[in-house]
């Protein structure tokens, strides 16, 4: 029988990684995700793996680059300013097509900002905070159970496509506890890693991990190959959950912690003859545009803990971008149940007045 445990989000990430076969973790402390390190520091060495506190976030991502080059499952985690420092490294990993899992428990920005929850790193994660044309797969879980499942999945997908997958949560998700059930055992698929640099043993040609190609045609063909891969991922890997969307008059679009609050509204509140639904993107890249495109409500209300980032992708996805509205809170303030309900009423009022 599966055992139920009460665990913190950050600890669940660490435990999920271990269950997904990750035995190498490199990180640098930063609130609100330090518990990932603490958990790893205790558990990984017992399993013969390596926990190493790096001298910086930059060192950590480059250690990840090293371990990933040798084909091993590896992870790092940090929070916003630390993730900014990893941008060069992430771009290198994309160029060298190295698989790894990177966790960002987002805090408020810009700058040193604050440690409270935020979704202000959407653009950085989804559009590419590093230089050049590249993508990461970005998962945005909204519960502890999902955090576990997506972390495990992140490792699989990273290996499958030779890509970095990111788990993006916020401080609430990292700090909160819910009950969780782990599977007895995770099925780990062993993807081909004949590209890995583990020594030739004099038995094969040498392997080279690199991201530099001075010949423009060689580099362009890498870029094109990467984009072909990204297209496949866009087709295959998008995920979203729909709640009450059929015939909805208003569809809230929200992810992570905000989607929890939105869900409670969809479940608990009545808005007269107006039906309110929710689309919750689970992958932020690839963005579940296809799901959004299925619906034609009177309005989409995008709610974020930012001043408007995902809303651009919502606009790029839906059939009529003029129907896309936005509500956001920042600084660590979480849009409350009441805040969102108010926004919905505003939409209804306006609709009742103007018919649009």
């Amino acid at each position: 029988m599966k055992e139920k445990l009460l665990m913190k989000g950050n600890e669940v990430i660490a435990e999920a990684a271990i269950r997904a076969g990750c035995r190498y973790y490199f990180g640098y402390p930063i609130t609100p995700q330090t518990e990932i390190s603490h958990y790893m520091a205790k558990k990984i060495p017992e399993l013969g793996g390596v926990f190493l506190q790096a001298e910086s976030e930059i060192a950590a991502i480059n250690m990840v680059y090293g371990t990933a080059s040798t084909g091993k499952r590896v992870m790092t985690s940090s929070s916003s300013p630390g993730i900014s420092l990893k941008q060069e490294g992430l771009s290198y990993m994309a160029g060298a097509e190295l698989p790894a899992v990177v966790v960002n428990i987002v805090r408020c920005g810009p700058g040193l900002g604050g440690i409270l929850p935020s979704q202000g790193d959407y653009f950085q994660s989804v559009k590419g905070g590093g230089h050049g044309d590249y993508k990461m797969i970005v998962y945005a879980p909204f519960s502890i159970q999902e955090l576990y499942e997506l972390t495990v999945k992140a490792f699989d997908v990273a290996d499958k496509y030779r890509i970095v997958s990111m788990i993006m949560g916020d401080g609430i998700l990292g700090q909160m506890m819910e009950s969780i059930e782990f599977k007895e055992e995770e099925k780990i698929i062993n993807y081909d890693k004949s590209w890995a640099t583990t020594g030739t043993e004099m038995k094969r040609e040498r392997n080279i991990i690199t991201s530099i190609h001075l010949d423009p045609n060689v580099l362009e063909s890498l870029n094109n190959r990467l984009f072909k891969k990204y297209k496949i991922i866009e087709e295959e890997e998008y995920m979203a959950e729909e709640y009450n969307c059929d015939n909805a008059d208003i569809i809230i679009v929200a992810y992570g912690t905000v989607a929890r609050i939105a869900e409670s509204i969809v479940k608990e509140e009545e808005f007269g003859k107006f039906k309110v639904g929710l689309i919750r993107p689970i992958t932020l890249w690839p963005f579940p545009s296809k799901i959004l495109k299925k619906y034609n409500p009177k309005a989409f209300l995008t709610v974020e803990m930012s001043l408007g980032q995902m809303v651009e992708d919502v606009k790029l996805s839906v059939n009529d971008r003029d129907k896309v509205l936005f509500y956001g809170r920042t600084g660590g303030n979480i849009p409350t149940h009441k805040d969102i309900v108010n926004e919905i009423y505003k939409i209804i009022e306006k609709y009742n007045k103007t018919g649009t």
Partner: protein
Amino acid sequence: MEDHHQIIISGFGGQGILSAGKMLAYGGMIEDKYVSWVPSYGPEMRGGTANCHVIVSKELIASPILSKVTALIVMNEPSLEKFESYVNQNGLIILDNSIINKFSVRKDIDVVAIPATQLANEMGNVAFANIILLGKLIHKTNLISKETIIESFKSILPEKKHHLIPMEINALELGMKF
């Protein structure tokens, strides 16, 4: 709604606010309910206030962040000020009146004042104050059983504090009976 408990526990850092909340959540879990626990976190906790949002429910939990609560436990004045308005009509406030001197709370809620810190001090360890208040809570709400919460002590308290469990049980009973 007997089946859906939304609780905030709040006070100074160091008063055992967070672990009291964890005990409730853990207890709820072993009674096969849906539970969530969200702490305030970060350096502002040093000397400042700490709180946690706990839900114990028969239903799947939507938002783990509370904007209204069925019960509030408060262990200092700023917390009472901050969270009083969160309490539902006919909701419950349990407060430590050895710390909160003046309070004039809403009339539409049930307020229980216990000098928990003083009682705990008399027991020899102020650290039991939170447990006394917890005792009152489960007594008033039947949120979880006494046995369950005692079981949760073992799980939530660090090993090196397990020798205190008999005392914690005394504190719990003290609260329940108060």
